[in-house]
């Protein structure tokens, strides 16, 4: 059973019960009103009649005259009957049509009970009493005690004037009574209002639950067709009125739910697409990796098999230099494979969410000097000039501005810069220049590695920092991390961990420049000392114990 149906049924049931109660209440009130007015009129009538004449005496003297008088009094109300009773209720005279047996007694109990009501006589709004002609206690009656001597108040009651207010000529059932009465239009009005309200409530429920149904349909659609298909054209999570934009929602809670749902969907889709992209890269990467590992391993296996075959034949004279060369090739290839595996493991480590930098405040230009020193010899061997520039990137001879201090993980940042220099050295020909800069620009510190090498074709530039991406047009020599498409990915990851950015610009034939931008340290000297001490206390370095 849907919520919608439940709500509608509840409201209809409430409406029905309400209208039934209203009808019952109206009927009861109407009946009571009628009886009260009847009783009051009867009571007043009896009072007027009884004070005028000494009825009991008249009955004793001239019974027929009394009867005629009584009939004439009742001419105005022909349906009601007037009785003259003695103290025990025996009918002495009556205006009724029916012939009562002589000595017939009217049940006086209700009348007497009303007279002895503890709240006082006349406290009861009306009295239901005995109708002698119908033998039933369901008619409004009024009675007036009669006393012979009016002067003595404690004289016992010697008779009653008894009025039975019967309605005749009106249809018997209360429903018919009601239908003919003034209350009927009011009742109809009430019933109409109840019906209208029920209808209105049902409509509101329908309009309120419609967005829910749409949402359900949208979710079901996604479950059925999948996130990706769902993202295709023609799919609208919450179809709105034609002409309205897809993001326009009503402002109520359901509208908010709808927007939240759409937002969630957008985010999930974005993440899903990112995941897919990543998955694609990984698959491509694994395939590249497998190739990159296979080549050095093939070379190694080939070398070792050759050696084994040679040594298996004792007749074959050992060729010392040749053997040695084979061992060198095997060693070089194995080392390359090992480096690749290492880089892969390191990248995985850097990717771990719980990975933490061990930062310390360092003068970057000093660090750059030291890193440059590591490569000077290799550059010289290749005929490349490697220099470290201080000051701004444009004019190196400017006055030494503020030393570019920044908080970095020395090991990782050095590795990133070394990867960049290694790459530059790999691609540059003899005669090229490689320049390193460290400058402070506002509240950031910039590191530049600029070379005058062959440059990188534009289509490759965008993907260079992707994992496992390597330009197949100009494959790098298989040394270091750089040649296997991991070097720049590691650089990017390290800079990301430092909350920095890395950008590459290159012009084929002119050279390449990589700019690393890091937030500058904004610590006092005191702060740096404290930081350095904290770092040294954390048991960071190897071999400090023992």
């Amino acid at each position, binding site marked *: 059973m849907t919520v919608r149906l439940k709500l509608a049924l509840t409201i209809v049931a409430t409406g029905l019960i309400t209208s039934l109660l209203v009808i019952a209440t109206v009927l009861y009130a109407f009946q009571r009103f009628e009886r009260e007015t009847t009783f009051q009129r009867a009571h007043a009538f009896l009072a007027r009649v009884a004070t005028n004449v000494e009825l009991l005496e008249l009955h004793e003297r001239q019974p027929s005259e009394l009867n005629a008088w009584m009939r004439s009094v009742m001419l105005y109300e022909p349906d009601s009957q007037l009785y003259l009773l003695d103290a025990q209720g025996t009918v002495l005279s009556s205006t009724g049509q029916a012939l009562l047996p002589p000595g017939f007694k009217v049940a006086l109990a209700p009348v007497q009970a009303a007279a002895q009501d503890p709240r006082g006589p006349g406290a009861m709004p009306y009295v239901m009493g005995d109708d002698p002609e119908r033998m039933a206690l369901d008619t409004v009656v009024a009675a007036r005690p009669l006393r012979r001597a009016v002067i003595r108040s404690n004289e016992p009651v010697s008779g009653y004037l008894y009025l039975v207010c019967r309605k005749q000529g009106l249809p018997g059932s209360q429903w018919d009574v009601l239908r003919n009465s003034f209350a009927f239009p009011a009742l109809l009005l009430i019933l109409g209002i109840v019906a209208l309200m029920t209808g209105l409530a049902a409509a509101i429920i329908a309009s309120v639950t419609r967005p829910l149904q749409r949402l359900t349909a949208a979710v079901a659609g996604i479950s059925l067709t999948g996130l990706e298909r769902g993202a295709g054209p023609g799919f609208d999570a919450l179809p709105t009125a034609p002409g309205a934009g897809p993001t326009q929602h009503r402002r109520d809670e359901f509208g908010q739910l709808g927007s939240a749902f759409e937002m969630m969907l957008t985010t999930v889709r974005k993440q899903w697409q990112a995941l897919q992209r990543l998955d694609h890269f990984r698959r491509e990467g694994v395939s590249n990796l497998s190739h990159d590992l296979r080549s050095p391993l093939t070379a190694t296996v080939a070398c070792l098999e050759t050696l084994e075959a040679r040594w298996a034949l004792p007749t074959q004279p050992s060729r010392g230099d040749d053997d040695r060369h084979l061992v060198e090739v095997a060693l070089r290839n194995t080392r390359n494979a090992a480096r690749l595996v290492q880089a892969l493991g390191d990248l995985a480590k850097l990717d771990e969410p719980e990975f*933490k930098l061990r930062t310390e*405040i360092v003068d970057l230009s000093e660090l750059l000097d030291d890193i440059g020193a590591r490569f000077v010899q290799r550059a010289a061997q290749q005929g490349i000039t490697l220099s470290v520039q201080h000051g701004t990137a444009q004019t190196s001879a400017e006055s030494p501005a503020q030393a570019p*201090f920044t908080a970095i993980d020395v090991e990782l940042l050095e590795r990133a810069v070394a990867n960049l220099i290694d790459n530059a050295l790999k691609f540059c020909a003899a005669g090229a220049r490689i320049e390193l800069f460290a400058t402070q620009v506002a509240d950031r510190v910039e590191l530049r590695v600029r070379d005058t090498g062959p440059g990188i074709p534009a289509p490759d530039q965008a993907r260079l920092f992707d994992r496992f991406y390597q330009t197949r047009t100009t494959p790098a020599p298989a040394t270091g991390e750089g040649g296997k498409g991991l070097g720049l990915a590691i650089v990017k990851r390290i800079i990301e961990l430092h909350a920095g950015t890395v950008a590459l610009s290159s012009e084929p034939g002119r050279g390449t420049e990589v700019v690393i931008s890091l937030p500058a340290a904004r610590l006092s000297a005191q702060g740096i000392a404290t930081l350095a001490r904290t770092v040294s206390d954390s048991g960071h370095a190897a*071999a400090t114990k023992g």
Partner: protein
Amino acid sequence: MPATILVAEDQVDIRDLLVLNLRGAGYEVSAVGDGLAALRQQAAAPCDLLILDLMMPGKDGLEVCKALRAKGNAVPILMLTAKSTELDRVLGLELGADDYLTKPFSLAELLARVKALLRRADLLRAAQSAANSPASSPGQRLCNGELEILPVKRQVRRRGEILEFTALEFDLLLHFAAHPGHVFSRAQLLDAVWGYSHDGYEHTVTTHINRLRAKVENDPMHPEVILTVRGAGYKMREAPP
């Protein structure tokens, strides 16, 4: 008498190669295949250096390390690990390993580390015995401005106040102080103080110089004691007159 080394490594090929090369380098080597055996062996015949693989059946390298240190055994430990995660590295050092190498490593590097660890252990022993011996002369000390270095006690004072140094920081400072005005590149310092020079570890020197400065300089951002020589390296200022 050659130093004794215990190798605990479960992979037979690697174990055999380690034994072969360490023996070739002139050490006396014994080898076991799991952590429990390593603990038994060390209890029966203590050796000068332990090479532990991190992943071993029985007790792994970390547990062996912990057990030994809990017993107060200060034998130098070199940890080998195939997992290069930070967690394992830090754990290894916190649990008392002295150095680590991640697989794959080159034998040359392993031998250099072993040599450095043994040398450091020797130095420490010598310093301790010298400090404990009443006959040792309190005399030799190096002064540089506000700094006063007592090599025998392995103590540094600045304006009379004793500074806390780790062993390596002290060695580095001592090396600088012993050659005031002499410029050292990072590679030279790595070789002289750490005992091995292997490409890729220079950053350790940077980190340690940073820490030295934090302790001995008035303003680490403008060092006056340990100076940078652009493009060449670092030196300690020559003692002011």
